[in-house]
């Protein structure tokens, strides 16, 4: 049972600035160097000086990105408050939530939230295979890794979910193509996106299997880059350079035997029960006092194309098993009823652990997105297959 809140966080904090480095393959620049670009861009965007930054929350440090303590030392920051998650993509919203809570509690006044990654350049971490730390976890990897049977890599966990989904609900791998095809259309309108050539459903179906039933074009990009947002109080953000992007609602990240990283409770993979899942009205909407139908856009973690389907069902945009129909026919494309990942997503803009998605949300709500701008965008949700969420508005 949810505790009654001691502190109403609705609209108490805001994103005051957003910034990013260049995103690309084999940039051969250190993650600290990339982090510096993103942090400097975000501070400049907010109109804040380095000395005014007193908090930092980093997701995804060693072995893939730059750690928060190193960033603080090397970039000459003087921080009152610092925290970091381990190297998983699922902590993006949690980091922003921690920052908002720290600001609301008076523990920091301006908190940079960020990740830098070097997936392809200087670091080239093992995402699966012999050097992959996930597979060496006691009691198994969090994506289902079990190396003795050859089960390895985050994508294999997503493939296990995709197969189960197809078997349980009758959807097909061809239906799933709607996700990467939609996000590629968005990337074509984004000068900063890495993959901008048109992609058809047939292109998707012709691409090679990586871990069947998932194909190359169901997998996100492997690249380098950094992205950052600055959280301040709403009051302070109103006095800064750009219009505030308010944090209207927050929903935390769950864990437990019913939570497989990429499937909602009752889905029936790993040790989850098989049960009917009913999203109900998710808490984030209650906090933000908005309804899903009010949204101008939805952003979601898309390391693999099946994940947005899971997120849509988890948050009740459609019922379990209905995501294929929901995402067909352009509904999630620009111009559709619920555009998703207008930056092109991890699938086509770049894989910055969805920190690039947070930057895009801020830019959409300020009307800075040029050819891919959603007209009069006022309310946008981050909603994840993991169950975490943020509701942003202008």
């Amino acid at each position, binding site marked *: 049972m949810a505790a009654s809140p001691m502190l109403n966080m609705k609209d108490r904090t805001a994103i005051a600035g957003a910034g990013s480095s260049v995103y690309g393959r084999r940039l051969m620049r250190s993650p600290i160097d990339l982090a510096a670009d993103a942090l400097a861009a975000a501070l400049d965007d907010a109109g804040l000086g380095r000395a005014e930054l007193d908090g930092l929350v980093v997701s995804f440090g060693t072995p893939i990105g730059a750690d928060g303590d190193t960033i603080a030392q090397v970039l000459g920051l003087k921080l009152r408050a610092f925290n970091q998650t381990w190297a998983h993509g699922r902590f993006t919203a949690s980091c922003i939530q921690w920052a908002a809570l720290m600001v609301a509690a008076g523990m920091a006044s301006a908190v940079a939230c960020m990740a830098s990654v070097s997936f392809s350049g200087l670091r080239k971490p093992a995402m*699966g*295979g*012999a050097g992959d730390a996930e*597979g*060496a976890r*006691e*009691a*198994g990897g969090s994506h*289902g890794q*079990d*190396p*003795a*049977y*050859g*089960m*390895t*890599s985050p994508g*294999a966990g997503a*493939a*296990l*979910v995709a*197969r*189960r989904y197809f*078997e349980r609900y009758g959807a097909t791998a061809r239906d799933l193509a709607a996700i990467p095809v939609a996000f590629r259309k968005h990337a074509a309108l984004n000068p900063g996106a890495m993959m901008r050539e048109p992609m058809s459903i047939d292109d998707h179906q012709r691409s*090679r*299997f*990586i*871990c*069947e*039933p998932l194909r190359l074009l169901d997998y996100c990009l492997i690249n380098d880059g950094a992205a950052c947002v600055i959280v301040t109080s709403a009051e302070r953000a109103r006095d800064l350079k750009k219009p505030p992007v308010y944090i209207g609602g927050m929903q935390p990240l769950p864990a437990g*035997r019913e939570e497989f990283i990429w499937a909602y409770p009752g889905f*029936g*993979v*790993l*040790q989850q029960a098989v049960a009917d899942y009913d999203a109900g009205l998710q808490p984030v909407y209650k906090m933000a006092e908005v309804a899903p139908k009010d949204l101008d856009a939805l952003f979601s973690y898309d390391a693999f194309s099946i994940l947005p389907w899971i997120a849509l069902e988890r948050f009740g945009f459609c019922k379990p098993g209905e995501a294929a129909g929901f995402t067909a026919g352009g509904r999630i494309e620009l111009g559709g009823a619920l555009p998703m990942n207008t930056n092109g997503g991890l699938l086509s803009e770049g894989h910055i652990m969805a920190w690039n998605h947070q930057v895009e949300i801020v830019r959409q709500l300020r009307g800075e997105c040029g050819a891919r701008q959603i007209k009069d965008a006022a309310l946008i949700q981050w909603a994840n297959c993991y169950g975490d969420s943020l509701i942003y508005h202008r």
Partner: protein
Amino acid sequence: MKMANPNYSKPLPAISELNRPYWDGLKNHRLRLQQCAACATIWSPPAPLCPRCWSREIVWTDLSGRGRVNSWVIFHQSYFRGFEGELPYNVAEVELDEGPRLLTNLVGVDHAAIRAGMRVEIVFDEVTEAITLAKFRPIAE
């Protein structure tokens, strides 16, 4: 069973104090998981206490070794040198009749013939002197 291969090059499981009885069981051709003496729950992966009721009265109990395919994937990409010669290879999630699910490889079945709900039983694969893996093969309903 075949002789253990001294040149076995695939990854081997990390043995811990928690999971040692599981691997010892497989070596003796017994599929065993932990069961709670207080509430009868059977679970995987191994835990220091019952995940349901937190009792520490735990026994390692023999299972039927039978179950059904719940989900599966086919690896086309090489991640481990030891699996390279077997691409494409399958990894399946088998739901044991007693409830817990195990990740495993299906043997004796064409990939195109794998189906959700397919009935399977355990095959003890002695891959090294020390390690026996739990693999599964299709059986009749």
